[in-house]
């Protein structure tokens, strides 16, 4: 038995060695580390499909800096430990660019891991491009030179949202309901703080936390919201916790305005439609499909031809890849040590509207116009709907870049 095991181990290690070609074989490899099985698989798959679509398009035009782009998927099951194993695997295959998004706990783990890795392995730098993890810690206390963030962090989204709510005179009583973990708490705490500064007259009539993905029946929570007399609810809930919450609200006939982070996430629009809450659910994102901007519309149309059931969930992946390609072409190299300086401070016309955003050099956070939109029935012949519901996101307000800027506490350690 032991012999067999030893043999197998030897065979595996030989295989491992042969699977370690250098990156410089004419392909540019991106490791996509996100959930591809288990509960988070639906969202992980969406990002992968979008990246594959981007790769096909750019390869048809001759690739990036003469190299063919290849997306290599790694399944991390939204688990920080598994993610590090997968990142190591990617590095062993010679990949120097890691793309990840789902789960700030995963994001922090990868950021820390690569900080150490890059210190110990100068000359073989690996960079982490983050498209969705939005815990402010990533670009503040723990910020790293090797991490770049494309989605607006929690505090930036809330800065923008409260700047919008500031002028909404009908908002008088706000109820907060969030998932009981670091992200939910950071949404609640920041909202309370910012509303107090900008609209001291608004009353916070409830600040509720419920366990993450464990609640089947939200009707008691809805009863509490109703009893509080709130006119507005702000929530960071995502996935099932969002869908069930909003359906319970629809069932009970609760009439409030919902300001959310993730109503547009996988399954969100379906739930909002089933709840029948047209024009009552709002989200804040870096873009939506129904913005009258030709270049984006054409790409979205092409994308939905390839993936008919999926709208574009992540406009930011287009920003991320677009800026990466630009940096690589400017540096004429796919070595992160050479192209990372080009990303710092880069100005870029965002995918959704063509308005300009910038990558702040001091903390590697991308600042971009943010959009508040609401889900309602659309003319599907002319406009995009979500998840085949016949309902699509319509813009309510654009928050210009200047109203999204927040301070950072990042003291970045630069290489060399």
């Amino acid at each position, binding site marked *: 038995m032991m012999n067999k095991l030893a043999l197998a181990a030897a065979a595996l290690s030989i295989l491992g060695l042969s699977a370690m070609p250098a990156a410089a074989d004419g392909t540019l490899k991106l490791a996509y580390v996100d959930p591809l099985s288990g*509960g988070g698989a639906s969202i992980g798959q969406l990002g992968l499909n979008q990246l594959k679509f981007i790769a096909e398009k750019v390869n048809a035009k001759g690739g990036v800096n003469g190299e063919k782009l290849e997306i290599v998927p790694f399944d991390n099951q939204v688990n920080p430990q598994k993610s590090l194993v997968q990142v190591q695997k990617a590095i062993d295959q010679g990949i120097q660019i890691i793309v990840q998004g789902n789960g700030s706990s995963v994001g922090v783990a990868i950021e820390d891991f690569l900080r150490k890795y890059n210190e110990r392995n100068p000359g073989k730098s690996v960079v982490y491009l983050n498209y969705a993890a939005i815990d402010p810690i990533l670009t503040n206390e723990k910020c790293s030179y090797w991490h770049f963030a494309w989605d607006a962090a929690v505090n930036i989204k809330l800065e923008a949202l409260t700047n919008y709510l500031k002028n909404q005179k009908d908002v008088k009583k706000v109820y907060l309901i969030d998932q009981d973990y670091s992200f939910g708490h950071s949404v609640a705490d920041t909202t309370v703080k910012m509303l107090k500064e900008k609209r001291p007259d608004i009353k916070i009539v409830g600040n509720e936390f419920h366990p993450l993905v464990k609640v089947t029946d939200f009707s008691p929570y809805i009863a509490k919201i109703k009893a509080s007399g709130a006119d507005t609810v702000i929530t960071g809930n995502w996935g099932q916790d969002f869908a069930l919450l909003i359906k319970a609200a629809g069932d009970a006939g609760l009439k409030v305005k919902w300001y959310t982070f993730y109503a547009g996430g996988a399954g969100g629009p379906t739930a909002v439609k089933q709840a029948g809450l047209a024009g009552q659910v709002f989200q804040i994102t870096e873009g939506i499909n129904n913005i009258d901007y030709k270049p984006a519309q054409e790409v979205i149309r092409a994308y939905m031809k390839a993936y008919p059931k999926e709208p574009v969930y992540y406009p930011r992946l287009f920003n991320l890849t677009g800026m990466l390609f630009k940096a690589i072409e400017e540096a004429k190299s796919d070595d992160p040590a050479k192209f990372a300086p080009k990303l710092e401070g880069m100005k870029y016309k965002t995918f959704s509207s063509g308005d300009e955003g910038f990558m702040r050099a001091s903390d590697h956070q991308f600042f971009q116009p943010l959009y508040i939109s609401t889900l309602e029935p659309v003319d599907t012949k002319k406009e995009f709907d979500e998840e085949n519901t016949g309902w699509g996101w319509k813009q309510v307000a654009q928050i210009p870049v200047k109203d999204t800027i927040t301070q950072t506490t990042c003291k970045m350690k630069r290489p060399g």
Partner: protein
Amino acid sequence: MFEIVFISTLNGILYGMLLFLMASGLTVIFSMMGVLNFAHAGFYMLGAFFGFEISRRIGFWPGLVIAPVLVGLIGMMVERYGLRRVHRHGHVAELLFTFGLTYVIQQGVEMVWGKLPVDYKVPPSLDFSAFTVFSTNYPAFKLFELLISIAIFLALLLVVKRSRIGLVVQAALDHPEMVARLGHDVDRIFMLVFGVGTGLAAIAGVIAGPALVTQSNMAGLLGPILFVVVVVGGLGSLGGAFIASLLIGLLQTFAVASNMSLADLFGGLDPGGTAAVYFGDIWSVTVAQVAPIMPYLLLVLILIFRPRGLMGTRET
């Protein structure tokens, strides 16, 4: 105050009945076959997706009948060609078999329907609000859930306790050889029971699908709460499961409604705030915040103080 109590009671009963609906198939299979069916949630999910597929072609009502029959047939096949062979190797093998089956069903569903949630709608004939109390609407579909749940409970009780089939089934569990010598086909009885149990899981799926989220991970998210129902009620006791469902529903709902914390209760006894330092977060956490954990606390307490559950007859 009265408003909160009334609404909470109503919500608690509705949620409890949904729990019973989802747990009934699990109880049936356990009480009559002695098999703890880990794949129960998988069959529940199959029911939801079959119901969705049928409802968008010919309507919800045919789906409510056809989907459970189909899933029941699949369940019978599983028993006939899988479980029966595994049974010889004892309970651990059975557990592992049904555990593995969950993954097979999940992958199958993902291959056919993808990973995104599907738009499984409440049928138009039930899509209105049945009544309104304190300006809160109660949709007709929830009442329908409640009625089906009670109907299933009564029907099962009658069949198990009062009918000849029920007697034979119960006898077959304790004395299979004796029953076989009396001329009953014991294997077929077990196959039927497994079919009925999985069919019940499918009914729960067809009904819970539109009410919750029909998605390929719904089996996983249903999670251990059903085992809590079955264990608290007493392994294998239908009446116990019914009462446990109601109890858990009410417990959780009332806990959510309460904003009390240890600090509120005992804060007056401790003006210096030393307790807050000792207990840390536990001191200030509200009951509402831990409400969904309550059933599991109940589970632990029951296992310590009354291991056979509320109405169980044996300690397993």
